[in-house]
C-alpha cells in the first residue's frame, strides 16, 4: 500500500524536472543572446572604471584585504533587487572606528553602488541595502578606517536575470 502510494509521485518528479530544465535552459540562452546587443547600446562600466572609482576613494593609500565582510547570495535570480550586507570588524570607539563603507561593482553602467558615512555612534559597523546588478560579476566593498587605512572584501555573484533587461523591449 505504502509502496503503491510512493511510486507515482516519484515517476512524476523524475519526468517534470527535465521539461522544466529544458525551458529554463532556453530562457537562459535567450537572455544570453539578448545581452550583447544591449551592451552595445549603452556604455557599460568596465573593471577599469571600477579601478578608477576605487582610486578616487582610496587615493595613494594601500588597499588591504580583510576585516570587511560582504554578503550577497551567491546565486541571484533577479538582479533588480539583490540583498547586500557589509560588515566591518572594528571596535567602533572614538579612537578606532569605520569612517565610511563603499560598495563597487564591475559591470553595471556605473561602478559606484553606495557610499555610507558612519561615526563611532553607530556602535557596530554594519550596513544592509538592496542593490541592482546587470550581470554575473564581482562586487567589492571597501571600509575606510579612522586611522586612514583601507580594507576590502569582494564576492562573485551569479545573476540569472540582470537588472534593466525587461525595459528595453
Amino acid at each position, binding site marked *: 500500500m505504502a509502496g503503491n502510494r510512493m511510486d507515482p509521485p516519484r515517476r512524476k518528479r523524475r519526468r517534470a524536472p527535465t521539461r522544466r530544465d529544458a525551458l529554463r535552459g532556453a530562457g537562459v540562452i535567450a537572455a544570453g543572446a539578448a545581452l550583447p546587443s544591449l551592451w552595445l547600446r549603452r556604455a557599460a562600466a568596465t573593471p577599469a572604471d571600477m579601478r578608477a572609482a576605487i582610486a578616487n576613494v582610496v587615493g595613494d593609500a594601500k588597499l588591504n584585504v580583510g576585516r570587511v565582510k560582504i554578503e550577497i547570495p551567491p546565486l541571484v535570480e533577479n538582479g533588480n533587487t539583490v540583498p547586500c550586507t557589509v560588515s566591518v570588524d572594528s571596535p567602533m570607539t572614538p579612537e578606532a572606528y569605520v569612517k565610511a563603507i563603499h560598495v563597487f561593482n564591475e559591470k*553595471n553602467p556605473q561602478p559606484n553602488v553606495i557610499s555610507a558615512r558612519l561615526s563611532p*555612534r553607530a556602535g557596530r559597523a554594519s550596513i544592509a*541595502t538592496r542593490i*541592482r546588478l546587470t550581470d554575473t560579476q564581482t562586487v567589492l566593498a571597501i571600509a575606510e578606517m579612522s586611522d586612514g587605512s583601507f580594507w576590502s572584501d569582494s564576492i562573485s555573484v551569479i545573476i540569472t536575470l540582470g537588472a534593466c533587461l525587461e525595459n528595453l523591449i
Partner: protein
Amino acid sequence: MASALINVPAKAKRGEIIAIKTLISHPMETGFRHTETGVPIPRDIVTRFVATYNGEEIFSAQLYPAIAANPFITFSTVATESGTFEFKWTGDNGFAATEQAKIIVE
C-alpha cells in the same frame, strides 16, 4: 507623496546598539533605460540619505543608480538618550522626504 517605512525600537536600554531599518518608496529610475522607441528615460533617483539623532548626524549615504527601487537601508546606532530620529532623503527633480521616529531610552 513618497511614503517611508521606518523601523526603530520604541524602547531601548542606555548603551544598547539598536538596528534602524528605513525604506522610502521611489522608482530609482537609472537613466540607462530606454522606451520602446529608443528614447532614453531620464535619471530620477534618490541621491542622498541622512539620519540624525536629536539633531546630530549619525549616518549618511550617497546613493547611485545601482541601488534597487524603493531604497532600503539598514544601519545601527547606540541608544544614548530619549529623543527623536529624523530621516531625510533628497534626490533628482527636487525630491525631498522627511520622516521621524521617537525612542525612549531607559
